[in-house]
């Protein structure tokens, strides 16, 4: 106990790293499970980077759809990334974070499309925003916004 009190800084750091690692890892694997599951559910909604539907698809309505997700880093990821930027190389801890944010945004896009009765999205685009919480060098959160043109069956007038 005494050892902990006297070297408080070190133990706080270790505790934060431990909490960040444990909770970050649990959140990440839970999120991935959920993403993979929902991607199967929404597999029938198709995504295309092409600007317009092929000309043979006629008699449709188009509507702008968008989905966004904000995912926060954890203390552990932030710490590792902070060291990584000295040496360069792949920031692996952030690669999964961005992958999750992108896929979550697309899932929300698909969800919106399905709610509108559509089954395809064209001209899909992504935007990303860095939401830095707190002061300089604070723990980062990332927002990914996905948007595109959903193709819906034409509503009979």
């Amino acid at each position, binding site marked *: 106990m005494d050892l902990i009190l006297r*070297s408080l800084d070190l133990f706080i750091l270790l505790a934060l790293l431990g909490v960040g690692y444990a909770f970050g890892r649990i959140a990440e694997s839970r999120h991935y499970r959920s993403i993979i599951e929902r991607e199967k559910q929404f597999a029938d909604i198709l995504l295309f980077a092409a600007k317009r539907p092929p000309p043979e698809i006629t008699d449709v309505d188009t509507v702008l759809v968008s989905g966004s997700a904000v995912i926060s880093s954890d203390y552990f990821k932030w710490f*590792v990334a902070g060291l990584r930027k000295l040496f360069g190389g792949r920031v692996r801890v952030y690669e999964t974070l961005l992958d999750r944010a992108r896929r979550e945004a697309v899932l929300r896009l698909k969800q919106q499309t399905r709610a509108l009765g559509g089954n395809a999205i064209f001209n899909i685009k992504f935007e990303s925003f860095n939401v830095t919480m707190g002061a300089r060098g604070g723990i980062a959160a990332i927002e990914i916004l996905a948007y595109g043109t959903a193709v819906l069956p034409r509503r009979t007038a």
Partner: protein
Amino acid sequence: MKLENPPQPEQYDPAAEQPVRELAILLGGVLAITLVVAFALAWFAGMLAPRLPFAVERDFMAGRMAVDPRFAAQSAGLQKLADRLGSALGLPPDMALTLHYSDNKAVNAYATLGGHIVVFRGLIERVNSENALAAVIAHEIAHIRHRHPAASAGRGLAVGLVVTALSTATGSTVAERIMGTTSMGVLMNYSREQETAADDDALRAVAKVYGHLGGAADLFETLKKSRPDAEAGFEIFRTHPFSERRIEHVREFAAQHGIPAEGPLTPLALALPKPAEKN
């Protein structure tokens, strides 16, 4: 035209990631770089600073530290003891000592640039003999003889400036903190080395003046009891070695040099001023 989205392979396998290993490697890299830089600077500055003539230190401190006239008697008493110990240690004649009594409850004493030694009331109240007080003063004189204050100031300045500039330039808060703590650890390491060297000299001086080492081990016992906070945690983050080890060292030193570890103690003849009224 066929429109479809074939399933894509997973790019990331969270189970295969080894973030802790990555952390260990990166941390090891930063630590290694900081240790090399800090040790090199500390060694260089610590070697260079004591090569300045002692007069530079003395002139730098002139006018910055004067003996408090209210405690002239106590300071003179300490001065007498220090001068005896100084000649026992073979202090060069140009290294004049100036002893200061400080009416402060801290159980401590320190030596600083220019041959100034400050002894606090709290320490004098707790030592039981002149021998124990002599061990403290001899320890501080040894610091001065080895030019430890100059070396420490040089090291602190060099390591502080360079590591701060370097760590800030990384632009990484994480790296900044790690580099700061590591370089502090390096300075503390040198500090503990100085303390051990000073302890050796102090024991030699006490043995020469009193013929035995009685009182020296008592002193570390007293320090241990009165400053429990300096004895806990990890030694690498402390400026001084733990008292337990210093007591052990007194015994070893006595055995090694064939000096009696105990002997008759000389009572302390130093009248302290009346405690100041508390505000």
